[in-house]
């Protein structure tokens, strides 16, 4: 009997093609490729349609009355408005977020109910719809705080100065919205620090606060930076929260004070897309504006991801 025949007799099947695995592997690979394809197509369409209208002039001039004219339109005031509101936002969200993360990581007792409630609140904040933040900004910051400020400053019959949409309230609303982003990123970087370092510091007679400021925070800075950048990237693209809290379609001047309204890249895209008298004429401007916005959010996101990858790699090396 040939060896092969005897093996067959013994019951060994010839290795066949594993159809299920092929199918499964193929489908999942296709899904992954599909998602990447979606990303690439969206980016490609926007770049192809927007790049021709993108120019130095586009970025640096004001639109004035020529918003619909492809040769004269410019997004400078929108860029300023968007940048101003996210910078203002970081002034509020980064300190609060970092301090909260420090509390959760260094001071709070892990199992205490209060700690769990704080974490639950952070998680919930992350899930609140952006339009609800807009309502909150309107009801709380503009209505309550702004209204109270007006009454205190000028009496009950006051002409609203603080109690109306403005860049301060829009920034504060966004700060509340992006708080979870900063907290999570900071906590991640705090967790990555070897506990031995804290022990060493305390054993040398440092107080907890000294340990945090002299040893822990300096090491956590890259992570904090990542969190800040992610928050900025997220906030730059959000429109729903600023719909009622300060965005305007046309302002004759750049925002000069905290109570001024402002123009905004995303808001402009929204209004132009939905209320343009001649959509074909404005398409090139739209694409170019979207391209500018995308370049802004993507480059920020990219930088944040790079920093985070660098941190993760050094973390793996240290342990």
């Amino acid at each position, binding site marked *: 009997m040939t060896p092969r025949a005897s093996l067959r007799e013994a019951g060994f099947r010839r290795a066949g093609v594993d159809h299920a695995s092929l199918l499964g592997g193929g489908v999942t690979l296709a899904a992954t490729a599909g998602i990447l394809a979606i990303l690439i197509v969206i980016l490609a369409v926007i770049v192809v349609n927007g790049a021709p209208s993108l120019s130095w002039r586009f970025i640096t001039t004001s639109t004035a009355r020529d918003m619909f004219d492809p040769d004269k339109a410019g997004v400078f005031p929108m860029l300023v408005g968007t940048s101003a509101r996210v910078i203002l936002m970081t002034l509020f969200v980064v300190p609060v977020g970092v301090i909260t993360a420090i509390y959760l990581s260094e001071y709070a007792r892990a199992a205490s109910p209060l700690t769990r409630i704080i974490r639950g609140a952070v998680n919930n904040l992350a899930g609140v719809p952006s339009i609800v933040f807009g309502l909150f900004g309107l009801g709380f910051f503009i209505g309550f705080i702004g209204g109270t400020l007006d009454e205190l400053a000028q009496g009950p019959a006051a002409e609203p100065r603080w109690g109306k949409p403005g860049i301060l309230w829009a920034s504060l609303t966004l700060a509340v919205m992006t708080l979870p982003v900063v907290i999570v990123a900071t906590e991640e970087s705090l967790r990555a620090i070897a506990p031995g370092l804290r022990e*060493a510091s305390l*054993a040398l007679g440092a107080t907890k606060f000294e340990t945090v400021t002299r040893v822990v925070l300096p090491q956590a800075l890259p992570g904090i930076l990542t969190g800040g950048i992610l928050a900025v990237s997220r906030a730059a693209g959000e429109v729903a929260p600023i719909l009622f809290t300060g965005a305007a379609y046309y302002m004759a001047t750049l925002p000069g004070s905290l109570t001024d309204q402002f123009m905004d890249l995303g808001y402009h895209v929204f209004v132009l897309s939905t209320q343009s008298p001649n959509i074909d004429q404005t398409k090139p401007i739209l694409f170019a504006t979207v391209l500018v916005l995308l370049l802004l959010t993507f480059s920020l996101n990219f930088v944040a991801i790079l920093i985070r990858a660098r941190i993760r790699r050094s973390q793996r090396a240290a342990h």
Partner: protein
Amino acid sequence: MTSVRPTPAAPAAPDTAALAPVLIRAQGVDLWYGAAHALRSITLDIREKLVTAFIGPSGCGKSTFLRCLNRMNDLIDGVRITGRLEVGGVDIQAPTVDVIELRKRVGMVFQKSNPFPKSIFDNVAYGLRLQGGHSRDALAERVEKSLRAAAIWDEVKDRLQTSALSLSGGQQQRLCIARAIANEPDILLMDEPASALDPIATARIEDLILELKQRYTIVIVTHNMQQATRISDQTAFFYLGQLVEFDSTAKIFTNPGKKQTEDYVTGRFG
């Protein structure tokens, strides 16, 4: 493995050791991690300017007791300590005690060296900067003094501003020792300081300890019994959270009083 160094001078003779004043006194110290009873009624005296070794199998309370001496167990949730623990005559468990000050007087070196990701200079100067009020020159002087005392000055004097993480394992540990003694503590607690090091680095640390004992009271936890015989004057044998025997090193290793001690030091278990 036989030692390649000449045997050091014999530790202080029993009666001389007994005359040294007591610096740390424990009376009936118990410790619980939640429900687990980790230390059972520990009573011992640690004397000034001697090296006292804690030996015993893993997990039997040596490190736990060591960490009581500078209140580092406070960092762990759910720890409860009863009994009296005196350092320099002061009950360090009392609520009136300034724990931060205590840790400046009672320094600690850890099993795994943990230099800060800062420069060598900044590492050693850390404790001094906490105190504040030192001029740049005074700091440099103290840093040099500590690095010399830790027998690492010659190796790092030209690169004080480089990162401490660029040093080898043995060097990092000596740096941590320099960092601890920069505070000029009275007592130095060492938790298996050489267990992560190769034999040559270990030998250097042991030599260092014998030098340091002229100025500091040293308590060292070790699972290496030969190390204990080489460098310590007194030895405490811990087993399952209890202090089984505490006496001069010579006696513990040549003529132990308890059978359990004899079994451990002769390697019958552990």
